């Protein structure tokens, strides 16, 4: 919305003042993320810009904290754990969540509100309560301090995101396409794999990505349920921040930012594709 040529001075003040305020808020939003990236290349073991860095002296920059990360068995082990746990819980959550969403979006679903409420609850309940509750229950059945326990817990936490995104996709899904397919002689299976699935795939994938990031970023449940063996990256960062804070954390943080940028781009592309193939105009 450009400023019209006949704008009065007061309108100009409002126009530029508003944009100035917005710029400041955008800086507040994004600066914390961008400050970390150059600092992770600091040659000194400090958390602030050295004089050399401010003068763009190449000697003040180094990749030592990245090497430190790469050569540290604990960090690499926790990175492996993070991926194993996140991928396993994503697969579980996406499969169960998509099947349930297919049922939930049928017109005849009984007790829809109640069931939806139960399925969404892991997203609503504060994490500390979920973690405490899971700790009590999982210890009593021997699942605490095991990979299986953490994977099950993370699956539960990821399911609401899958259910919400997939039901949202299905709600804008044109049911007459199913009837058209069956009219032309397709059986249930063909209809599902050739008509329904391709159309809801973008929704399923973005649900899966939400489930992945939920698990990949989760630390409270891991704090309560994991032993040293199952430490994940966020868990390792947590003790890094609390105990022996080292710039290696900044290198890890930068890597995690890179991962989230990739995920963000994928979700955005999927959203556009989903809009395009269903012919919805924004």
């Amino acid at each position, binding site marked *: 919305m450009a400023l019209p040529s006949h704008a009065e001075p007061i309108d100009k003040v409002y126009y530029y003042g508003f944009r100035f305020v917005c710029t400041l808020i955008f800086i507040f939003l994004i600066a914390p993320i961008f400050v970390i990236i150059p600092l992770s290349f600091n040659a000194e073991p400090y958390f602030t810009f050295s004089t050399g860095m401010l003068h763009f002296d190449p000697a003040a920059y180094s990749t030592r904290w990245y090497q430190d990360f790469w050569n540290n068995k604990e960090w690499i082990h926790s990175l492996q754990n993070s991926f194993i746990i996140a991928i396993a819980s994503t697969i579980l959550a996406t499969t169960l969540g998509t099947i349930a969403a297919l049922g939930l979006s049928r017109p*005849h679903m009984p007790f829809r509100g109640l069931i939806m409420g*139960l399925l969404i609850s892991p997203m609503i309940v504060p994490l500390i309560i979920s973690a405490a*509750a899971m700790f009590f229950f999982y210890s009593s059945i021997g699942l605490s301090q095991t990979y299986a326990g953490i994977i099950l817990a993370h699956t539960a936490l990821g399911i609401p995101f899958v259910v919400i995104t997939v039901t949202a996709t299905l709600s804008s899904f044109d049911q007459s396409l199913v009837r058209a397919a069956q009219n032309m002689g397709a059986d249930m299976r063909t209809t599902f794999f050739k008509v329904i699935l391709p159309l809801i795939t973008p929704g399923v994938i973005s649900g899966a990505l939400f489930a992945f990031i939920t698990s990949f970023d989760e630390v409270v449940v891991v704090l309560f349920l994991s032993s040293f063996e199952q430490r994940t990256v966020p868990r390792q960062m947590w003790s890094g921040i609390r105990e022996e804070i080292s710039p290696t954390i900044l290198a890890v943080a930068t890597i995690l930012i890179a991962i989230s940028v990739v995920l963000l781009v994928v979700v955005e592309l999927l959203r556009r594709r989903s809009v395009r193939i269903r012919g919805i105009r924004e």
Partner: protein
Amino acid sequence: MAQQATLPISGHELPADAQSLKARLRKSERTNKWRAFLFVVPLLLFILITFIIPIGSMLYRSIDNPQVVETIPRTAAMLADWTPPDPPSEDVFKTLVAELRSPPDPAAIGKLAVRINYEVSGASSLFRKTERRLKRLDDAAPYREQLIKIDKDWADPELWAAIKSLDSPLTGSYFLAATDMTRNVNGEIEMQPGSRQIYLTLFWRTFWLSGFITLMTLLLGFPIAHLLAILPLRTGNLLMILVLLPFWTSLLVRTTSWIVLLQTNGVLNDLLVWLGIISNDNRIRMIYNKAGTVIAMTHILLPFMILPLYSVMRTIKPTYMRAARSLGATQWTAFWRVYVPQTLPGVGAGAILVFILAIGYYITPALVGGQDGQLISNMIAYHMQTSLNWGLAAALGSLLLGAVLVLYFVYNRLVGIENMKLG
């Protein structure tokens, strides 16, 4: 429709036919219902086992009280006739010694001691000390004097009142403790003295800090959402990335960034010193206190305010504002009287969402909150991991859960959970 179509043809046979059609329709609807339900069953079972049952067992733990009933049931029963302040009769002591000498399992007395210690501090060491000397007690002499000789705490009416009040398999005592209440010697409920009211203070702090953070996110989120909504779609989408990137970035990464930025030798203080705004000796303490919690949480929760606001603001037609202006309203009047009322659904949705998330926050206050920036979640974690008073942790958790569920109910009425926007 089918009924109408058959009407001219089948004449008087209509009722029977329509009935069978109705029955067939109902039957097929029932089959459809079951088929839809079958799709949901696996997930429902999964969530029940991995999530709902654990939550239920936590709620149960907040009232579960087996220790006294299982270990010293007869002693506790005999206390029904006891009145403070004198210690109970010799009979009670005799029963107690007998029951302590034959516990149901070897760890039972330890558990009992820990349980009573939650009510009367010092009870744990009292029981351990007594347990060690049980064998050396002179069975001919009165136990009452011997036990009081071992430790004069055995004459303390508060101890006996505590045992008496715990004589039931379910108890409200964890909830009393979680709301800073206690039973006095006569079994009446009273408030803790002011200096020991830690939990109500903490609940109160959690609520007002969350409210303040919600207000901050609204103040910062409103202009941004407005800007994104009025910009052309392409520019708006581009700027939206600046909102979504923090949303997708790891919570721990963002918390680390704030530590790096705000600590006394951090980037922001360095910048202020360099600009000459503060001197090197007067660096501002912006983290490891309430300010740290507020700044970091406002940043982390801001996208949750912007996204619902944005989706409401996009639907507001700019023509309304123009109409108001052309009817003579000033810019401010048009904004305040015409635009803002239309954004209220978004404001409500965003505010409740941010508030719900804020009152349950744990990680950020734990890392940047210092002493006075801790919230109720941190106290739950403390009782889970350090003091090991799991009953109290469960009671505090149940109270927090209750608050969240009430807010969620309001949110669901206002927005409907399915309309929640995810990125």
